[in-house]
């Protein structure tokens, strides 16, 4: 309850343009949002850029938060940023058709700076399609319910359940294989 009040106070400060409140918001959510970006892109540099883009965008967008579930709202913005990135990457790869294969490998290969276990998970995650990776990571990092995830992604709950179930089952098989 106190945590909820604290979050409301921080959001209110952010809406009023208070830099300190934004700093607290970054402290609270940067880790989870970064985890999502890293897991869906597999690239630290891209994740760094997307995290920066997220919080700068929040300065403009925080006023549009209607006061329901902040985490659902936040992760909808997070997911939109990832999809914008995917679209931009797609346009870029179309434009630079001659370098297509090189660019794809750049995007999908994880960095080698993490521990072996993390690399292993990332390698297996990269074998899933981008949409399945997105929905699994959205659920894991936003900590939202299936109903909230379905709402965020504007899809039926049955579709969300099916994608998460199939994706996690395949991931487990890959990790155990």
């Amino acid at each position: 309850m106190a945590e909820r009040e604290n979050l409301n106070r921080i959001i209110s400060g952010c809406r009023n343009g208070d830099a300190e409140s934004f700093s607290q918001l970054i402290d609270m959510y940067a880790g989870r949002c970064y985890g999502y970006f890293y897991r869906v892109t597999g690239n630290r540099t891209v994740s760094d850029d997307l995290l920066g883009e997220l919080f700068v965008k929040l300065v403009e967008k925080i006023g549009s938060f209607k006061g329901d579930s902040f985490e659902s709202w936040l992760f909808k913005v997070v997911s939109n940023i990832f999809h914008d990135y995917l679209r931009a990457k797609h346009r870029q790869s179309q434009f630079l058709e001659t370098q297509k294969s090189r660019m794809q490998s750049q995007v999908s290969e994880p960095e080698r700076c993490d521990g072996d276990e993390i690399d292993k998970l990332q390698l297996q995650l990269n074998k899933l399609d981008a949409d399945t990776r997105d929905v699994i990571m959205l659920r894991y990092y936003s900590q939202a319910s299936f109903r909230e995830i379905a709402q965020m992604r504007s899809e039926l709950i049955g579709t969300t359940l099916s994608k998460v179930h199939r994706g996690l089952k395949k991931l487990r098989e890959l990790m155990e294989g």
Partner: protein
Amino acid sequence: MAMENQANENIEKLFGEFLSEEDSRRAAENVQKGERILREHPAPAPAGELLADINSKVVKALAAKGAKTRRLIACKVAAVAAVVIILIVISVKFSGKGPAVQTPVTLEPIQRAVWESDGVSVDRTELALLRDEIEHVEGEILTLRLGENGGNGGGEFVEIEMELTDIGSNFWKG
């Protein structure tokens, strides 16, 4: 309606809306095991430098937003002031309570005969007639002074006055 969160949602029951009891139990188990793998392999945390950089970007964005908001407010105030001024002008104009509209000061119209005359000769004729009239009046006055009219001075004065008035009006009428 408050939405259930991840902590209190019943996954098996959710799957049960689409699958058989056995399948929904297995699906829920698969999800839980998969999510356990994710928990066991945490993603890297953002670097401290990155967070510091983001904080400074946010401060800049806030400053830019503040300036933009101030400009927007100034524009709105200017627009409202303009509307108020226009409304005041319109209300003053149509209520008639404001200062009287000044009509332009013009000179008396120039006598039509003089204005429409196309030559000095016409004007001279007019002047000649006026001079004759004046001479006639002077003669009348002289007659009165000399008493040539048989002592009927009062009636003569009225006649002269009427004649003067007539001359004046004829002259200005052209």
